[in-house]
């Protein structure tokens, strides 16, 4: 299960891609915004960081992680009427 933390305006959680690579899920806005959620992971060059919108990166995720990220994004920024997360679901 994801371990969501508030980081400034973003909500982040570590996530492991299906390739085994460690990455970070970052949520900053609603689903309607293409960059409302993204997966950030190390690029091929040293120190390089790649940021890929969730809709494109979803193929790299386990379905459980994908569900977790979409659900948290909707709870934080959506209008479906889902309960907003609070501690301990969302750490500071």
């Amino acid at each position, binding site marked *: 299960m994801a371990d969501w933390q508030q980081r400034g305006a973003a909500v982040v959680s570590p996530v492991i891609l299906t390739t085994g690579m460690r990455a970070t899920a970052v949520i900053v806005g609603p689903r309607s915004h293409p960059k409302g959620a993204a997966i950030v992971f190390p690029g091929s060059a040293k120190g390089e960081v790649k940021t890929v919108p969730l809709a494109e990166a979803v193929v790299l995720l386990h379905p*459980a992680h994908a569900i977790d990220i979409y659900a948290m994004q*909707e709870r934080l920024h959506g209008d*479906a009427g889902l*309960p*907003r997360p609070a501690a*301990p*679901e969302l750490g500071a």
Partner: protein
Amino acid sequence: MTTPPRDIDSILDDVVTLPSLPTTVARIVELVNDPQCSLLDVGKVVATDPAIALKTLRLANSAYYGLRQKVTSVEQAVVLLGLKVIKNMVFTATVFETLRTEMGAFLQHSVATGMAMRVLAESSRAATLSSPDEAFVYGLLHDVGKIVFEQFFPKEFKLVAKAVQEDGAQWYEAERAVLGVDHAQMGARLAQNWKLPDDLVHAIGGHHDLAGTDARYHQVAALLSAADFLACRCGLGAHLPKQNVTVSEAHWAASGITAQMVPQLMERYFETIPHVGELVAIAAVS
């Protein structure tokens, strides 16, 4: 842990008044399976139970079913919706009537899981599910074993909640440690006693553990597990805010759900969320 683990039969022996399937639903199930029965017969049976008839009418008029005309009688509902839909609707109404006095969050979780199961079943085209309405009933009933525990073993039920909160255990694992059986096994036994269809019995029984579940029912049990997870991750769980709800890899594999399917599944699930509140409100009306 004050109670030594026990087997399901000794627990069932203690539960001398195991909830019985209401007569109305038992009769409806019989009628629907009878090729000679008429729509009128079904309407008459539903109308004999005022509480179930009222909830059936409220459901028939809900946005969830989306009928264009106002339904004013059970007979009219039967004609407009057809036998299979009515069977599931009456079943839903009966479960609502049973759960009305139970924990509010439990009812909300049951409805939310029903909605998720409906969405997942539509996308996966599970062979054993004949309609989205039927899928909804699977979700609605998936945790019915918890009602038995909460009703007949309240002390142990609280110990389970404590173990989950303090140790981060999964709910069903804590039940096995405290009671010797989990709610999925108990729910399956209850469904079997109610003579519900085999696929529903096995789906309930296998929604946390596929071991012991016939391979023919693995997909539907796995979809039920994923529906439970989906509802919980959307904040519509039954118990604790950060309950450790997981789906086993065996369940994911059997479900056929892939990450590529998730964006569309979630979009469709979020669209159903207003219906969760609507159905919970219908269930809460006496």
